[in-house]
């Protein structure tokens, strides 16, 4: 039922003039994708530096909270542009993307990474006075940072894999893959 609703929505979205225009525009689509990847570098670049500090592997002579707080603004600027361009990329190719295993996995991983970031941030704020100047933060902070790094690398992989047709609907896949991709039987051929 949910998959039918999602597909109907994606088909409606894909029929919009702007969606078709974006999909068929060589330069516009490519510039949006380029911007998506470049702002991913800004967002993830900042995040990686923060995570490496929280792991006790980089800039250990600078208080951890200072690194996290000062890099927050450029990181969130990168994140905002990355999310906007990500929505535009989805808007340009909604039907195939909705039925992509990798896109679905990416969305789940993004939610998990968001929850991890929220927990991580609260934990850091609460414990700031006790370990802020330590070169090597406590174990639970290091676990949070390691999880953040792993999740974002998995998100990059899922995003990269969307371009591949390995599990596209309409091919001879197992029931699990068809379920995970949300393939709707009527449109799978």
């Amino acid at each position, binding site marked *: 039922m949910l998959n039918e609703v999602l597909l109907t929505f994606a088909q409606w979205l894909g029929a919009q003039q702007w969606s078709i225009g974006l999909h068929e525009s060589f330069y516009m689509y490519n510039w949006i994708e380029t911007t998506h990847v470049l702002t991913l570098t800004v967002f993830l670049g900042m995040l990686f530096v923060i995570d490496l500090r929280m792991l006790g592997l980089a800039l250990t002579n600078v208080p951890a909270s200072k690194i996290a707080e000062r890099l927050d603004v*450029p990181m969130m600027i990168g994140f905002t542009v990355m999310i906007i361009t990500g929505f535009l990329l989805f808007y340009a190719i909604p039907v195939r993307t909705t039925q992509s295993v990798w896109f679905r996995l990416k969305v789940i991983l993004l939610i998990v990474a968001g929850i991890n970031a929220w927990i991580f941030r609260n934990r850091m704020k609460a414990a700031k006075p006790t370990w802020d100047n330590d070169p090597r933060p406590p174990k639970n902070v290091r676990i949070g940072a390691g999880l953040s790094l792993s999740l974002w690398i998995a998100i990059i992989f899922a995003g990269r894999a969307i371009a591949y047709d390995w599990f596209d609907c309409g091919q001879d896949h197992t029931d699990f893959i068809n379920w995970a991709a949300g393939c709707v039987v009527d449109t799978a051929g």
Partner: protein
Amino acid sequence: MDVMSFFTWLEGSALGQMAKSYGGVYAMAQTVHLASMALLGGTVLVTDLRLLNVALTDVPSNVVADGAHKWFKVALTIILISGIFMVAGVAMKAYYNAFYWAKMAALATGIVFVFAVKRPLLKKDHSQIPGWVLKMTAVASLTVWFSVAACGRWIGFS
């Protein structure tokens, strides 16, 4: 061996065949390449934004530049290794792609700039260097690394 012969050999090599035959491995190499590109971008941005007095202004720029440079070298090494694997799978396509050569030119410029200009300069006490020199270095650095990333993305479109 001329350049074209090298690219022909590379595509036919075991590395090239592996990159061609295993899509999953190729996608993983792309992931590693992108993640290390993000790390490299992070280290460059942190240093350059500090030199431009935009971020981490309450941390000495020497400290930021030294700390970031260690991870810049790690990221660059991983980028080069994963990049060689990636190009091996599509060597002839890359050979005839203008953006591939633009990226290589920008990358070579970036590496020379970092190790021959930026790093020797930033190793010195920053208080002894005129502010405009530090700012110009940051602008040049951001420009060259932006060019590398943008050309790299455009390879796939042309």
